[in-house]
């Protein structure tokens, strides 16, 4: 119980400072919108084609926007040596990590909720035909992105070229998660209820989330403290 409160304290702190300054949020959101626009030049956005590639399009946008957001997650704490204070505080490193991951998760979900209607308008897609399933996929895959992303944000926080390092390391790691999300989202935007193969993808997404949450929680102390 005490642990959960520590997690929430860190998450609330991150959310509060992000919502007040909006530095990463604004950049990430406008970047997402720019990419959504750019995709309209990459192919002719007819209804047919959009239906076929909607999952891939949306998740690339979310993954790119997420990288911008996640870059700042630990880097923000470098100013005034906040990171050192956080690490020496009585909050265990894993609670610090989970709190930050939670905050990033909520922020990225917020960005996704803005992007989806914009996608619907620009690409003339009726994306909300399976709202419950789509919400589930968004929650699970976004957690996959944020848990890996927050871990790598911690891993790269003290490095030169941090901004370059994070996407380069994160995207190959995220391939299984993104692939599952793309498959499922394409089917859901087309209005299908998940069955057979798609349920297998969903199970893989759950497995991915569980394994990498556990690994990150176990390893984050080594990364931050040593």
């Amino acid at each position, binding site marked *: 119980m005490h642990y959960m409160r520590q997690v929430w304290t860190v998450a609330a702190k991150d959310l509060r400072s992000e919502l007040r300054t909006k530095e990463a949020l604004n950049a990430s959101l406008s970047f997402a919108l720019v990419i959504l626009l750019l995709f309209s030049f990459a192919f002719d956005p007819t209804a047919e084609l959009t239906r076929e590639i909607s999952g891939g399009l949306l998740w690339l946008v979310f993954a790119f926007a997420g990288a911008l957001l996640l870059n700042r997650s630990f880097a923000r704490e470098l100013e005034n040596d906040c990171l050192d204070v956080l690490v020496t505080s009585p909050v265990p490193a894993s609670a610090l990590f989970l709190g930050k991951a939670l905050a990033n998760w909520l922020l990225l979900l917020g960005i996704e909720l803005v992007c989806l209607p914009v996608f619907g308008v620009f690409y003339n897609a009726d994306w909300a035909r399976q709202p419950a399933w789509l919400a589930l996929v968004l929650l699970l895959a976004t957690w996959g992105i944020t848990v890996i992303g927050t871990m790598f944000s911690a891993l790269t926080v003290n490095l030169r070229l941090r901004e370059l390092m994070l996407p380069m390391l994160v995207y190959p790691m995220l*391939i299984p998660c993104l692939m599952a999300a793309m498959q499922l989202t394409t089917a859901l935007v087309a209005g299908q209820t998940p069955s057979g193969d798609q349920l297998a993808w969903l199970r893989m997404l759950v497995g991915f989330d569980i394994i990498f949450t556990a690994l990150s929680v176990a390893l984050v102390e080594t990364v931050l403290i040593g």
Partner: protein
Amino acid sequence: MRERTLYLLGVIAAILLARNIYVMLVGLPDEAFQGAIFRIIFFHVPAAFTCFLAFFTALIASISYLKTGRMQWDALAVSTTEVGLAFGAANLVSGMIWARIIWGIWWTWDWRLTSMLVCWLLYAGYLVLRRAVEEPAQRARLSAVLSILSFSVVPFVFFSIKWFRTQHPQPVLYGEGKMDSAYRAMLYGNWVPLLLLAVILVAVRMKQENRRLELDALRREAHTI
């Protein structure tokens, strides 16, 4: 490992390789459907085996480093990762040459090709990360964590890409497919010199890494004086 042992291993590997190439080209007949090019399998598949064995060793070395904090383990991890990447590249390139002749294309997004490429990129990221960290203990720690995370994602990569698409010939070493016993013997037989080569490379690279650590320590000592 002593220098003389390494040279000895090298000579053994070279002799074995020469013998294998001779048998491959002269002793073994062309494959019924693919003809001469089929022989590339004797390098293609053992290279993949060696690559994954190297990555697995890197995982063990990384875990051992985190447990003990001895730089020896870090040296082993980086050496095996580099050698694994070299063999991975050999596997990818030989596969591409084979594909060009049999399938008529250099590359196809089949699950095994794609998975191998993703694994290769994951571990290439490991080397890039190492270059970005100055301090040796921090470098060892962070790259050990990355190695563990990378290895854990490999099964996910393989399964997910397998579900996604398939064109590669079905497994011939196990399962339904059949391979002539002479071919099979050569496939495993040629793994021996390649594995020896990998061991030699790792040993040389570890030596280099140890000398670098010594140099670093000396330099720091000189600074304090």
